[in-house]
């Protein structure tokens, strides 16, 4: 609750600050400090302390607290990394901050909702600022295109989401998750068509938000067209929130009728992983490549929904660990991309040629984060995949595990295309050696790399918190 209020105030503050030409560095510092403060408060006071608000509209249980902290933490790190990006932008900087913070407010509602109405509100509060942020490079045609695409498809999805909620409400007579859940428990055997249609509308809407196949078509265009900082935001923080909500809705609320939707998730997960990784192989633009790779990762995270028959703490641990490892590795990689884009106005893989020689630190950050995304030990990404695969086999989905594993090998291939450019190719010009990073960036990036390795060696730090 404190989180929602203080972040909303922060959002309003930074928006007004823009009007009065307050120093942007100061606004950034205040934002980061506030976000970290809120994170500390949430973790400190709400952990193991279930806490319901607004007539059970929001429920800050451990699950919500963990995801809230992940969202806030990733946002703070991203904002710390924003220097390279904002150094090229001259105006409306504080408005960026304010939109990002408003979006985060929506995400917190998304992971803490206990009522379908709140889910809808959360998704909208998150999405509307994103539509603006995606199109924030007004003079860039790609940015405009992606904003329009995202907006139109997002609006359409909102309609589907609402329709789904309505149908569920029509059948169960409630928006409240626990009421719906107990309705399912009582009537698990005879699920009416209305309910099923409603369920699959919700499934489609959530799949759109996390860009799972076959609702992933917007992702590459939007990721490529948006300003890189926003792409990073969308592929990490937004994804955490999307999966937080997806998981909360299906794993908790729809668990009693899991046999209805597990097959759908199975197929979607297999499709998502395969389409994502196979298409990624053919990309030459790194943002597009990461868009497809993020689709593929979404598939792995979808698999965790199949663990509905496993124990709660294991499933929570697996998805949360995956989300954390994916987002810190992606953030680290995006920070490198932003640094390179500062001197090169291109996001093609060729722009990264010879980076390791010109700037060894960035090379190492890229290597470790790519190793983690590709799932190589001893990084966090390896254990994340290991946990997911282990529980897949445990739940009896051996074929799905085989598909996932095959795609992990394909994954190596396209991730390593980037590494080859960074390490094995010669630079075409001298511009890469002009990258100058501040001390703060270096410290945070090194900490992130250490974090990826430490999480990979001591997974219990995150995995066993539930």
């Amino acid at each position: 609750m404190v989180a929602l209020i203080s972040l909303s105030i922060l959002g309003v503050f930074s928006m007004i600050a823009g009007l009065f030409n307050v120093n942007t560095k100061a606004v950034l510092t205040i934002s980061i400090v506030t976000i970290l403060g809120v994170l500390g408060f949430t973790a400190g006071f709400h952990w193991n302390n279930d806490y319901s608000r607004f007539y059970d509209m929001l429920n800050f249980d451990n699950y919500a607290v963990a995801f809230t902290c992940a969202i806030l933490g990733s946002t703070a790190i991203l904002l710390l990394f924003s220097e390279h990006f904002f150094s090229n932008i001259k105006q409306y900087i504080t408005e960026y901050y304010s939109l990002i913070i408003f979006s985060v407010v929506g995400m917190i509602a998304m992971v803490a909702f206990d009522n379908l109405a709140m889910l809808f509100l959360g998704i909208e509060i998150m999405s509307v600022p994103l539509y603006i942020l995606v199109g924030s490079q007004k003079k860039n045609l790609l940015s405009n295109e992606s904003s329009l695409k995202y907006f139109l498809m997002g609006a359409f999805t909102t309609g589907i989401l609402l329709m789904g909620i309505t149908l569920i409400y029509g059948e169960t007579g409630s928006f409240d998750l626990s009421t719906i859940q107990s309705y399912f428990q009582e009537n698990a055997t005879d699920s009416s068509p209305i309910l099923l249609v409603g369920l699959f509308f919700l499934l489609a809407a959530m799949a759109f938000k996390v860009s799972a196949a076959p609702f992933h078509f917007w992702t590459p265009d939007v990721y490529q067209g948006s300003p890189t900082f926003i792409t990073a935001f969308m592929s990490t923080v937004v994804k955490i929130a999307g999966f937080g909500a997806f998981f909360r809705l299906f794993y908790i609320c729809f668990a009693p009728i899991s046999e209805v939707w597990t097959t759908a998730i199975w197929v979607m997960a297999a499709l998502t992983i395969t389409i994502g990784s196979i298409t990624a192989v053919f990309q030459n633009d790194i943002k597009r490549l990461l868009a497809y790779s993020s689709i593929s990762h979404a598939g792995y995270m979808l698999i965790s929904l199949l663990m509905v028959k496993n124990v709660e703490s294991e499933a929570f641990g697996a998805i949360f660990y995956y989300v954390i490892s994916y987002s810190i590795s992606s953030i680290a990689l995006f920070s490198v991309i932003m640094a390179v884009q500062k001197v090169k106005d291109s996001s093609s893989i060729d722009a990264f040629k010879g980076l390791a020689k010109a700037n060894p630190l960035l090379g190492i950050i890229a290597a470790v984060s790519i190793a983690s995304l590709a799932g190589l030990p001893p990084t966090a990404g390896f254990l994340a995949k290991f946990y997911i695969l282990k529980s897949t086999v445990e739940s009896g989905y051996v074929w799905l595990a085989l598909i996932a594993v095959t795609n992990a090998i394909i994954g190596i291939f396209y991730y390593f295309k980037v590494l080859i450019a960074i390490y094995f190719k010669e630079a075409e010009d001298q511009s890469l050696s002009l990258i100058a990073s501040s001390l703060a960036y270096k410290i945070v990036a090194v900490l992130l790399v250490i974090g990826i390795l430490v999480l990979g060696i001591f997974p219990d730090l995150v995995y066993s918190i539930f």
Partner: protein
Amino acid sequence: MDILSLLVFAPLLAIFFILILPHNQSNFYKNITLVSTSIQFLLSLIVINRFDFSYPKIQLVEKFDWITINMQSLGYLSIDYYLGVDGLNLALVVLSTFIFMIGVVASWNVKENAKAYFCLYLLLTASVIGCFLALDLFLFFLFFEFMLLPMYFLIGMWGGPRREYAAIKFFLYTLAGSIFILIAMIGLSISAIEPLETAEQMNLTGETSADLIANVQNQLQLQKIPKKALVHTLDILQLSDKSNYIKGTWLSWDNETVLWGLSARAIVFLLLLIGFLVKVPSFPVHTWLPDAHVEASTPISVILASLLLKTGSYGLLRVAYTILPDQAIEFGWLVATLGVISIIYAAYNALAMNDLKKMIAYSSISHMGFVVLGIAAATAESISGAVFQMVSHGIISAALFLLVGVVYDRTHNRNIDSYRGLASKMPIYTTLTVITFFASLGLPGFSGFIGEVLILLGAFAAHSHNGIISSWFAVGATFGILLSAAYYLWTLQRMFFGKFWVKNGSLWSKKLTDLTFQERIILFPLVFLMILFGLFPHLILNIVSPTCALLADFIINR
């Protein structure tokens, strides 16, 4: 931190020193690396000193709880940090520390990006030695897969013209293999328990730990243990114990479920087999090796041939054969067939090669085929022979690749038909080459002979000992020795004997000088060891054979 952990992690300290040293001190990088690897070598000698040769089981154990996953109603998964030595790995550990030391001297002239080179080299040291020492499957896998990363960069950044292709091919092949191992590991992780930790969960106490283990295993077979208290394990030794498997799980010994005509245990065995054979490499998954060797620089080729390949065959023994002895008997024919095909097919390939390094790469595959055959036969002699052959091939192939490096460094050409009569120009070089070639083709008196003879003896006797394979496999393999004699002698004839002639005439003949001091100090010890172990094979066999006999016994009496 005990001696084995020190052995594995000492290089990390050296990496730290290299990282803090500024660039203008780049000459010190190699010195630090040399000191670090020498310390490792000394440590491995201390390990031999502490090793009890008469005791065949795991010694000098270091075991800590590492990751514990609480699955609540499904029990726990306990992953340990578990290191130890026995006859299977001790000789290989000493070999690795020695070869790594040689490799540093061979890298003495690396100038380009020396900091990264030596850091990666040290990382490789840590992960190869860690792989040989790890006794928890998870830890083993971690080291096994981690070593790909430094190797990938070492091939890809300091290699020849097609290095990117070779590096990614190497990586994808071996990674695909590792993924098979990963699936097998996941299957194993849900099937067996660690009795002592389970007893702790059940609050059982016993007079001795042996009583306690027997008690728990007994209750497990009667299915009296609540699921909640089961502590699953990936400890290789526990996984090898039949009575630790939970009744009704996929990999329990009495599971009759059949998938695609195979039992679950058979599938897991085949997964592990493919995974390790990629690394060995054996036919039909060997094609990455010639490419990787041709593109890698000399020291990296040395490490690749003499150590990385051994992790594959070692893993086959340590993991697949130890955990699934029943399937090892069932599929002995398959393993042996692949081994024999590798021996002969690779030997024919070697015969056809004009690139000296490629020829040696194929000869490597051929000789590793003997190791695979020895493992397949699974008699006490043949397993001892396989481990002996691993060590001996480690020494010989290191020398072979160093010898190729000698001509390549001088002329940047490795084609056999570019040279004739080198003997008159480079006498010491020629002598060493002749000795190494003879050692490799298995002339009595050299270490290669002992390994191959033990393997062939074991394979001949297998049908009467344990009936796993017929003696025809050994007959086929003998043909491989003949072929290896053919390609080595033919190469000697073409390159070294006759009248001196080189392709680029006077330009090259000036460059083709005899061995430098640096080349001598790395080649002489290797040649010395070939002869030493050929004349006194018990130096290795004393370490190796008790454990191998135990393993052979275990496989028959499973």
